[in-house]
C-alpha cells in the first residue's frame, strides 16, 4: 500500500468501495450518452482520494453513483461489503443515511435550521431520540471547532464556518466514506487551507475521504488521484508514484 500509515488506519484489506464494470447511460432524445463507460475501482479504508477530470469526463456521474444518489445502468458496486447496485429507493436512502457523508460545493445547509439542527437532521432519519441526536450533533460540531456557534443560522456564518457545519453534518453519522464535491469551490484561499487542514485531521483520525475536484492543488493534497476521461479511468496514481 502506497498510502502512508495513518493513525487509526485499519489493517482490513477488503476495500470500502469496489466498482466493477460500472456503466451509466443517459438517453438524450434519441442519442445515448455514455457518462460512465466501464469503471473498475477499489478504494480501501482510510484512503484519501481525489477524483479529477475535465467537465463531461464522468466525474459527477461517478460521484452520484458512489453517493448512492443514482443507480448504475450496469456493473456491480460493493459498498462496505454490500452490493448496492440493485437496491431500491428506500434501501438507497438508508445507505446514504448510514454509510455516506456528503459535502457540497455550495454547502447545502438547511436555511431555516440552526447549525445544531442542520447537524441533527441526518439522525432524524435514524429514528434516534432527540436527546441522543443533540448530544451527537454537539460532539460533531465541537470536533470541527464550531462548539460556540451551534445556535447560529447558516446566513449568520461565514463561508468557512458553513462548510465546517456541513462537514460536521457529514460526520455525525460516522459514515464509511466522506464524499466531498468541490468542497473548496466557493471558498477563498485562506479558508481553503483551513478546510483542507480539517480534512487532513479527519483522515489522520481514520476517515475514508473522497474529494471530487478540478483544482490541481487540492488533488495534489490527497494521497491518491484518479483522473477520469470520457467515462473511464485515465490514470490512478498514488502519492510518490510518478505522474504519467
Amino acid at each position, binding site marked *: 500500500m502506497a498510502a502512508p500509515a495513518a493513525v487509526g488506519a485499519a489493517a482490513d484489506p477488503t476495500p470500502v468501495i469496489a466498482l466493477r464494470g460500472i456503466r451509466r447511460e443517459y438517453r438524450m432524445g434519441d442519442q445515448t450518452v455514455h457518462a460512465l463507460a466501464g469503471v473498475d475501482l477499489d478504494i480501501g479504508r482510510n484512503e484519501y482520494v481525489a477524483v479529477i477530470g475535465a467537465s463531461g469526463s464522468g466525474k459527477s456521474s461517478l460521484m452520484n453513483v458512489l453517493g448512492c444518489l443514482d443507480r448504475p445502468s450496469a456493473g456491480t458496486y460493493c459498498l462496505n461489503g454490500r452490493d448496492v447496485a440493485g437496491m431500491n429507493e428506500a434501501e438507497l436512502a438508508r445507505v446514504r*443515511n448510514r454509510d455516506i457523508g456528503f459535502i457540497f460545493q455550495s454547502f447545502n445547509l438547511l436555511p*431555516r435550521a440552526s447549525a445544531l439542527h442542520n447537524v441533527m437532521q441526518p439522525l432524524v432519519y435514524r*429514528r434516534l431520540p432527540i436527546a441522543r441526536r443533540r448530544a451527537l450533533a454537539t460532539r460533531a460540531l465541537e470536533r470541527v471547532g464550531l462548539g460556540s456557534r451551534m445556535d447560529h443560522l447558516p446566513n449568520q456564518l461565514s463561508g468557512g464556518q458553513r462548510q465546517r457545519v456541513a462537514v460536521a453534518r457529514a460526520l455525525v453519522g460516522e459514515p464509511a466514506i466522506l464524499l466531498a464535491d468541490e468542497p473548496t469551490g466557493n471558498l477563498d484561499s485562506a479558508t481553503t487551507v483551513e478546510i483542507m487542514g480539517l480534512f487532513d485531521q479527519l483522515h489522520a483520525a481514520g476517515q475514508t475521504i473522497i474529494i471530487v475536484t478540478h483544482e490541481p492543488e487540492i488533488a495534489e493534497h490527497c494521497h491518491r488521484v484518479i483522473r477520469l476521461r470520457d467515462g473511464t479511468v485515465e490514470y490512478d496514481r498514488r502519492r510518490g508514484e510518478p505522474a504519467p
Partner: protein
Amino acid sequence: MIAIALDSLRSAFDAIRAHGLRSFLTTLGIIIGVAAVIAVISIVQGLSHTVNAQFQGLGADTVTVRSYTPFAQAMRGRFARLDEGDLRAVRHRVEGISHITPVLFSPDGRTGQVGYRSRNHFTQVLGVGPAYIDVTGVMPQEGRFFSRSDEERRRMVCLIGTEVAEQLELPGSGLGEFIRVGDDWCRVIGVLETRGELFGMSQDDLVLLPYSTMQRLIGTSRRLDIQIQLRVDDVDRMDEATERLRRVLRQQRGLRPGQADDFRVQTAEQLTESFNSILNTVTAVAAGIVGISLLVGGIGIMNIMLVSVTERTREIGILKALGATRGDILLQFLIEAVLLSVLGGLIGLAIGYGVGALAAMLLPGFPPAHVPMWAIVLSVGFSAGVGIVFGILPAAKAAQLDPIEALRYE
C-alpha cells in the same frame, strides 16, 4: 415514526414562520370559513339554548287552541272563529284536562291603549278566565288574582305586568291605582311576576282583565274570536289528549270528513320542535357555506404548497442526500399542510367566537353566544382533513423528486 413526526412538525413551524404573511394569506380561506360558521353556530346555539329553557318554562303540558283561517278564505273575508260553545265542548267532552281558560285578545288597537295621568302606553290586553293562573303558572308577585266574583260581576279590575307599571310610571308597584284601559278605568289588584324576554320581546308588557270584563269592554256588537289555553293531567298522554281535542272540535264545528281543520292545536313541544327545526336548517346552511369555503381554502393551500415544494426543491434534494426516504418527505410536507390549515381553523375559531360574542353583546335582548364542543371538534377536524386532502398532491410531488435533479436546482 414519532421522532420523524416531531421533527417534521418543527420544520413545518419554521417553514410557516419563514413566510408569515404568505402563510396567513394562504389560510385566510379557512380562517374566514371557520370563523363564519362558528359565529353563526354560536349565535344560533345560544338562541336555541335560551329559547328551549324558556319553552320549558312555558310548560310541556300546556296546549293552545286558536282559530285558523286559510289564506284563500281570508281573501274572501270569511274568518274562522272559536267561541264559547267550542270552549264548553272542550271543557265537557275532552278528558284529561286539569285546567282550561279562554283568552280573549283585543280585536283592535283600541283596548290596547292604557293610560295613567298623562302617560299613555300601548300594550297587550287579554281577557282571561280564573283558571289562567293554573294553566300558565304565572303568579302575581303582589296583590291577588281575579276571584270568581270579579268574573261574575264583571268588575273593572286588572293585573299588570311590571313593564306596564314602569311605562306608566305608577307610584310604587302600582297596586291599588286606577289605570285607563281603552275608555274605562280599572283598578290594579295585582302585579305579575317578572318573566323577562322571549325572542327579544318583553313578556311583562301586558294587562290582564277578567274574561267577562273584557267582553264588556269589547261590546256585544262584535262576534268574538277566543283562544283556548289548557293544561293536561298527564304529559305522557299529551298526544292522546290533543287528538281527542281535535275530534271534539271538528264535531262541534260541524266539519265534514275531508274538510281541513279551521283551528290549530299547539303544544309547547311543537313550538320547541318547529323552532329547533328552523335552527337546524340555519345550521345546515352554515355548514354548507363552510364546506364551500373550506374547499376554496384547501385549494389555496394546495396552490401555495405546490409553490413551496418548487421553491424548496434544493432543500428536498439535501434531505434526500442525508437519507430521507420518500415517506419521510411525504410526511413532512403533509404535516406542514395540515399544520397550516389547523392553525387557520384555530384562528377562525377564535375570530368566530369573538364575532358571535360581540353580536350577542350588541343586540339587545340577545342570549349569550354558546359554542358547543362538537362545533369546535368538527371545524378543527375538518380543517385538518382539508390539509390532508389538499396537501397530499404537493407532498407526493416533493417525495417523487429525483435527488440529483433536486440538488442541481437553483
